[in-house]
């Protein structure tokens, strides 16, 4: 903790600038997320009847979620290695579960 308590003015400035930079990225990802949402709703409302519709919707959702995880929840920052291991672990089990429930259940 010692290095924090005697942070110089300059370091302080640098950190603040870093935070600002990060904030900018977050606003951009927010704008992109809104855009993806609009595209997803638009495609459904315009009734684009294509075999690619559902995969595209899912892809848009996945990209949005990655933005949310990596930018909003800071997973791109340092010190998130174990976090990533556990999130991807959970995600693998999740995907396996969903594949199961859409394939080997009696209909």
């Amino acid at each position, binding site marked *: 903790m010692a290095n*924090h308590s005697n942070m110089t003015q300059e370091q302080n400035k640098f950190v*603040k600038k870093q935070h600002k930079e990060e904030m900018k990225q977050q606003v951009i990802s927010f704008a992109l997320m809104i855009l993806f949402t609009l595209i997803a709703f638009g495609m459904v409302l315009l009734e684009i009847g294509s075999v690619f519709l*559902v995969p595209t919707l899912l892809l848009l959702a996945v990209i949005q979620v990655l933005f949310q995880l990596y930018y909003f929840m800071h997973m791109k920052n340092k010190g998130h290695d174990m976090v990533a291991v556990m999130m991807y672990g959970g995600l693998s*089990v999740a995907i396996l579960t969903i594949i199961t429930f859409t394939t080997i259940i009696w209909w």
Partner: protein
Amino acid sequence: MSHEDVLNPKQLPHDPEKATLEGKNKFVGFWFFLGGETVLFACLFGTYLALNRSTSGDNTPEHLFGLELVFIMTMLLLTSSLTSVYAMYHMKNNDFRKMQIWLGITVILGLGFLGFEIYEFVHYIHEYEFTFRSSAFGSAFYTLVGFHGGHVLFGLSWIVALMIRNSKRGINLYNAPKFYIASLYWHFIDVVWVFIFTVVYLMGVV
């Protein structure tokens, strides 16, 4: 580190949520918990996908769901995710007042979302007699969306409790991790919602 340093640090480090061992533990532990929550929601999604064609009468997804309401709800929750990012930005810059304001906006947006969700459920029940008990699709729909709604309610209560408790003392090394993980929880709720609006509503009316 003495209690005084934790509660009234002379200068807030730039990652106050991870500056103490307790904070680091909370941070890592809560992320792991979210990994478990991922599986929990996957099981609910799986159940929904297995049962969403087990409808009764006219109450099919195509017939029930209105995308206008869902779009508004999505925008509310998505925006609330950004506002809580702003709150954490101000927390790291040790600007307590601004953090409280942004958290307040987050709560208002969340309440709006919850209000619409309750309206939606009431509407289905009274207009369409589509209930938790009417079909397997109904059971699965209300359970999945309801679990998410329950998370929203819990998240809102949590954030409000933290805001009130700390309203008079500002940010310190003891409450910063609490604010931070509450905001992680809030983002996760948005993550789940992205899949709900895609899988349940959009794919439901396709």
